[in-house]
């Protein structure tokens, strides 16, 4: 026989059993201990709406056992109580209400300062609904989308009728049902009728009935995420119909949380579906028609039923049911379980001995989804919008079962000045537990309404927010993939060469191929190659291309002849440096612009923005994906390219800085003479698809020249030796060109460019900070503060030991001091001397080749 492992005991179960019904049959009555006072909690709603039956299943806490199907081999534990929920020593807290009034943790443990730290650890261990399996393998759920004209949430009678009507009007309809159709109905004619209706709806060609799909929120769109077993389904619907029905109203009176107090549907399901009587003698408090049905169901299951009902209902009670007309429950009594009920009748108070108390006192609409969609095309049908009376709120008992908040706690909070449902909620945490106010939200609003005349506060429900129905974290993360890698066409080549691939912004780039020093030496002494295909690359064409670039960039453009290139910085309107790159003048009035790898998207957005604002006729083509780029640098660069190209590679043909269209190893390249690493260099921009063959040809043809690829680590040193900064690493968001020593790259004689007005204003203000070159007599670290005369005047932004220079060098920020610039600084234990940049080949002889 199939069994579940319940805290070490093999508990058999029958077909159709839930975990709760199997355990109940086994004799379990205490399913849980409450959050704060560790009171016994037993089965209550039976429909997955309350927190009482939550257990850990296979190590995962928070499963509502009343709606979780029992499966062979499941390991089920109750996550609360010490040493066990049946004999819980922490239950002593139930006697200490006076010591733990509502909000006590805001007031207690304030002094000494370490007190809260200790108390918090103890409180956290003593409370909660179980332990998260922190060593479990994270699951990644798939997400899928669906589009429909109408989404109906809930496949009860109202939802199915709404779906049928929408379908008849020609709409495509999805019906989402949390479990199987009719799961809250006990066997009988109503369930049979509902199943017939479901079959008819299912047969409609434009209706899709999805069982096992739980709606957890309503978002803009409206978009509704549905949690299913294998995926998170995001439904975008033209219209949403909420037909989630209502749960029977939570009764609030002293003893209302004792095991043995049931909501009617839970008791009826247990008796009719699982064949389990909930007691020989049962009191049913009914103020609804359905309450009469529950009484009949329980009686049919063999229990003696005493019905408390208004006269109008009582007259329709089944024969054989003992009736107390116009009686109401004042209190449930018992210690571990209900043993009696005190009722008020027209004749006075009575105590009724019983084994269970069943409540059918009214309705609490499951309207959280409806309230989330207030400003969206979301409507309700059926019980979710049926009028409800005042919730049954007595003088004592627990309002919020999840958070252990009773009427008394609410009264204390109100007296302390928390006088609206919203702040009562925040102070007491009522409605903030797993059921999210499904049972107690109306009570909280009614409590506030009874105590104030303020229109804005009176009877107001707290705001409904997703998620509802307690999804798993893996549900919420469905379809999310944090890592989206951009790869160049040479990615596989780098991996094959053993490169350590680093994440650099959105790109994967080689950090090193194993020996950084050797990679640097290759560039300085022989020839090196680097994949720079990550650079932003743009073609700017159209009759207004030059006008756009001339207005956007501070660079002088009017004399940039085809075949020439120029360093480029991009400023924002504030005159601050946003990006840098190169601009190459092509034929026919076109330009080719490069940006940093991380700045490409922003560069494109900026250029498009300005072109639109000025209504210029410009075609901007982002070629970042289309073109790869390989930088060939070093004294042997020209010889290497000469072996693979018949084109003229001299400085006359490709001036510095300049460019030419050449063929290399049969691949059409735009060769750009640049100088970022300070050697004779050619950036070969080429069609992406030809990248691997070009790379192979370069490494193959240059083997005897000692060609070697290098990664970002080597680049970091090579550019530093030339005194070049890395944007964002060495710069700050409020750097204007002068602070970076880039005044030469700005043509202030131009009539206008983005940021010019700001630069003119800032030019009148003395420079208070600038980026400087540093030479160290020891080994500094990046980020070290720079000190002068005992005061911090800056920090190191980049540093490295340069083999070529035989010294440690760096860049750093330096503040003016007493109207001057300190020249000798301390950086930790080392002395830093401010020196001119570049450190390496200051005349630029090598890069000019």
């Amino acid at each position: 026989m199939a069994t579940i492992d319940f805290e070490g005991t093999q508990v058999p179960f029958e077909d159709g059993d839930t975990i709760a019904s199997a355990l109940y049959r086994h004799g379990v009555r205490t399913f849980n201990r409450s959050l704060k006072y560790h009171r016994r909690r037993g089965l209550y709603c039976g429909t997955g709406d309350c927190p009482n039956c939550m257990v850990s299943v296979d190590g995962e806490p928070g499963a509502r056992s009343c709606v979780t199907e029992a499966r062979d081999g499941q390991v089920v534990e109750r996550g609360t109580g010490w040493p066990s929920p049946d004999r819980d020593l922490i239950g002593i807290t139930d006697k200490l209400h006076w010591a733990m009034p509502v909000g006590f943790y805001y007031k207690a443990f304030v002094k000494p300062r370490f007190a809260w730290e200790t108390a918090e650890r103890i409180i956290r261990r003593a409370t909660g609904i179980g332990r998260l399996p922190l060593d479990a393998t994270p699951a990644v759920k798939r997400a899928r989308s669906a589009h429909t004209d109408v989404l109906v949430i809930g496949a009860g009678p109202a939802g199915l009728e709404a779906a049928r009507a929408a379908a008849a009007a020609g709409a495509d309809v999805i019906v989402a049902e949390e479990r199987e159709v009719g799961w809250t109905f006990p066997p009988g004619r109503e369930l049979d009728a509902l199943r017939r209706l479901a079959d008819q709806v299912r047969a409609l060609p434009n209706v899709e009935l999805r069982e096992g799909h739980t709606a957890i929120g309503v978002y803009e769109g409206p978009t509704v995420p549905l949690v299913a077993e294998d995926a998170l389904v995001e439904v975008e619907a033209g219209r949403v119909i909420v037909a989630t029905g209502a749960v029977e109203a939570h009764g609030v009176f002293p003893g209302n949380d004792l095991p043995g107090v049931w909501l009617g549907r839970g008791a009826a399901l247990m008796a009719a579906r699982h064949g389990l009587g909930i007691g020989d003698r049962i009191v049913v408090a009914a103020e609804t028609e359905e309450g009469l049905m529950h009484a009949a169901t329980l009686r049919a299951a063999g229990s003696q039923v005493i019905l408390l009902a208004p006269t109008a209902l009582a007259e329709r009670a089944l024969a054989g049911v003992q009736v107390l007309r116009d009686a109401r429950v004042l209190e449930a009594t018992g210690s571990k379980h209900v043993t009696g009920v005190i009722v008020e009748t027209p004749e006075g108070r009575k105590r009724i001995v019983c084994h269970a108390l069943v409540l059918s006192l009214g309705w609490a609409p499951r309207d959280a989804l409806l309230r989330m969609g207030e400003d969206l095309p979301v409507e309700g049908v059926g019980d979710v919008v049926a009028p409800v009376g005042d919730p049954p709120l007595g003088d004592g008992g627990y309002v919020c079962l999840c958070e252990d908040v009773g009427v008394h706690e609410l009264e204390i909070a109100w007296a302390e000045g928390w006088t609206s449902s919203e702040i009562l909620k925040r102070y007491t945490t009522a409605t903030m537990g797993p059921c999210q106010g499904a049972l107690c939200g109306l009570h909280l609003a009614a409590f506030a309404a009874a105590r104030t005349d303020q229109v804005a506060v009176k009877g107001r429900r707290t705001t409904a927010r997703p998620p509802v129905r307690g999804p798993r974290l893996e549900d919420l993360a469905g379809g999310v993939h944090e890592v989206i890698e951009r790869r160049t066409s040479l990615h596989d080549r780098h991996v094959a060469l053993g490169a350590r691939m680093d994440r650099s912004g959105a790109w994967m780039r080689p950090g090193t191929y194993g020996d950084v020093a050797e990679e640097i030496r290759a560039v300085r002494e022989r020839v090196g190659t680097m994949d720079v295909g990550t650079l932003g690359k743009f073609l700017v064409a159209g009759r207004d291309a030059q006008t756009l670039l001339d207005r956007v960039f501070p660079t002088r453009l009017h004399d940039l002849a085809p075949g020439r290139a120029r360093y480029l910085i991009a400023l924002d309107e504030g005159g601050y440096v946003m990006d840098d790159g190169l601009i190459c003048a092509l034929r026919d009035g076109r330009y080719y612009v490069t940006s940093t790898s991380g700045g490409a998207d922003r560069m494109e957005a900026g250029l498009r923005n300005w072109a639109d604002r000025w209504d210029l006729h410009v075609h901007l083509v982002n070629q970042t994906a289309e073109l790869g780029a390989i930088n060939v640098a070093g004294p042997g660069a020209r010889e290497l390219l000469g072996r693979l190209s018949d084109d003229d590679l001299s400085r006359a043909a490709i001036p510095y800085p300049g460019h030419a269209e050449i063929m290399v190893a049969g691949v059409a390249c735009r060769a750009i003479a640049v100088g970022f690493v300070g050697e004779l260099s050619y950036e070969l921009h080429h069609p992406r698809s030809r990248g691997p063959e070009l790379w192979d040809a370069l490494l193959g043809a240059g083997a005897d020249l000692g060609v070697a690829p290098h990664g970002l680590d080597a680049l970091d040193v090579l550019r530093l030796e030339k005194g070049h900064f890395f944007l964002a690493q060495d710069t700050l968001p409020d750097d204007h060109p002068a602070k970076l020593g880039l005044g030469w790259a700005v043509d202030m004689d131009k009539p206008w460019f983005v940021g010019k007005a700001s630069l003119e204003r800032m030019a009148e203000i003395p420079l208070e900070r600038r980026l400087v070159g540093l030479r160290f007599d020891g080994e500094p670290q990046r980020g070290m503060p720079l000190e002068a005369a005992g005061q911090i005047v800056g920090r190191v932004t980049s540093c490295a030991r340069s083999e070529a220079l035989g010294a440690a060098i760096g860049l750093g920020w330096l503040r003016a001091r007493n109207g001057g610039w300190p020249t000798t600084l301390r950086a930790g234990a080392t002395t830093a001397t401010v020196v001119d940049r570049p450190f390496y080949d200051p005349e630029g002889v090598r890069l000019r080749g």
Partner: protein
Amino acid sequence: MAELTRPGLSVVLCGASPDALDALVPPGHGARTCRTAPDEALSVCPAEVAADVARELEDRVAALDDDAVVLDVSDGWTAWRLTGPDSRDAFAYASRLALPDEGFVQGSVAHVAAKVVVEADALTVLVPAYWHDHVRERLIHDARVTEAIP
């Protein structure tokens, strides 16, 4: 069942004024021309006719806008083709885009910017080439399509 293949497609970009593109007669040769922006259209076509498509586009757009640009930008795009009876269902695991019966949509696929050419029996997903591996992995993992090995 949905199958993933890499069709040999080319992409020809036409940049021109919105008025010119409004009036442009799309090229033939089996190309599908998609208006991706007011001033931009992409013609997706079999690789072997890309030159013909580009030439035809140049001729036609030149008469409408003397400052227009036509470029073969095929290297900038990776095209993935989803075929099979479940291709639309599989696509729904990778994107929230609503698909027309036939035509063209653009938006997010596997969380990256994409263009989707929709035919009765197939979907062609175009993404910038640097996301080639990412989109392939997501389609195989999330959409559970079977990759056809050529």
